[in-house]
């Protein structure tokens, strides 16, 4: 079993699952019905991506591991998602900005993964790329609308930038399993994506009349190696409740 590849797949899967779980908290609470559906559609896309990565990881792990055991029966320290995706929804500005930061990263990442030499990862990335293209377009629209909107919407977007920017540095600092995956040409060199990511953010921020944050802001890190903010435990408690209380229960 290739341990680093499994870790890499879990990282990709956890990112999408935790963000999907966060977005799904909006279900029934969206600001308007249409956006309620939009954000839950995005959740479903992301859950689909995480399932693909978990299924592949489960095959490599063997020992009766399944996509379900990986999603529902691992603990906080075993989750390898970015700190960004576990941050609370806050208001609509924070939710759309979190989605924008993540989708802009996925947009670049999945382009690289499609070119990789692992056929399975490449195929997942190819399918997911279309979804991500839409997520990026949808979230960009909201950054522009709120940033260049009313005084209040701009304030809210500026607060969201203040709150979330510190979690964006981690994306581009490779964990050991990412370095290994990049070396074996089945993953992407995330540090090389940062330049294009910043360019995209700058482009949208400019249109949204938002100024870029200062460069020397301290960046939080740890999620990729299982050291999370306080929020992840609560997410898992809710998400895993059913399987923990009724092990093996099915629909």
């Amino acid at each position: 079993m290739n341990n680093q590849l499994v870790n890499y797949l879990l990282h990709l899967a956890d990112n999408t699952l935790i963000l999907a779980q966060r977005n799904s908290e909006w279900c029934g609470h969206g600001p308007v019905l249409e956006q309620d559906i939009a954000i839950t559609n995005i959740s479903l896309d992301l859950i689909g991506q995480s399932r693909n990565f978990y299924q592949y990881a489960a095959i490599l792990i063997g020992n009766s591991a399944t996509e379900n055991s990986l999603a529902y029966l691992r603990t906080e320290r075993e989750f390898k998602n970015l700190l960004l995706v576990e941050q609370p929804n806050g208001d609509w500005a924070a939710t759309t900005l979190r989605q924008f930061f993540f989708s802009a990263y996925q947009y670049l990442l999945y382009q690289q993964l499609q070119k990789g030499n692992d056929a399975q990862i490449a195929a997942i990335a190819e399918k997911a790329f279309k979804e991500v293209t839409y997520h990026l377009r949808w979230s960009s629209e909201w950054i522009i609308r709120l940033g260049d909107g009313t005084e209040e919407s701009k304030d809210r977007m500026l607060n969201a930038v203040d709150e979330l920017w510190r979690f964006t540095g981690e994306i581009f600092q490779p964990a050991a399993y990412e370095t290994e995956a990049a070396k074996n040409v089945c993953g992407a060199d995330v540090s090389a994506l940062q330049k294009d990511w910043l360019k995209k953010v700058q482009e949208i921020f400019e249109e949204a009349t938002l100024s870029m944050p200062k460069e020397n802001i301290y960046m939080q890190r740890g999620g990729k190696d299982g050291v999370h903010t306080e929020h992840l435990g609560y997410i898992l408690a809710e998400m895993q409740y059913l399987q923990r209380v009724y092990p093996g229960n099915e629909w």
Partner: protein
Amino acid sequence: MAIRKYYYGDFGESATGSASQEEKQSKSHVSSIGHDWPLWEIFIRSKQGLDHKHVGSLHATDAQMAIENARDVYTRRQEGVSIWAVESKYIRASNPDEADSLYDPANDKAYRHPTFYKLPDDVNYM
């Protein structure tokens, strides 16, 4: 202050498509969103067929958002390959009270149906 719950379709019926003054003054965050978003009629063209069919309506701040909302609300199950959005206030409807004078006179004019002709094979989409 009395709390009013809002449901989909509560707005857009009046000429301006917006809520009353009293409601506008309540600044409570969640309930104030969507008050004055205009209503849009959505038309979808399916993979089969050349016509856009009316599928329903939705709220959006402008045409761009109307298209995106329509994509999320009305094309989730592969219903279509093209979307039209028209702001509802621009739709002019016939008056149901005039149905008798508008439509009944066509009842007994069978000769208006082109059923007496043979169509050439080259004619498509008839």
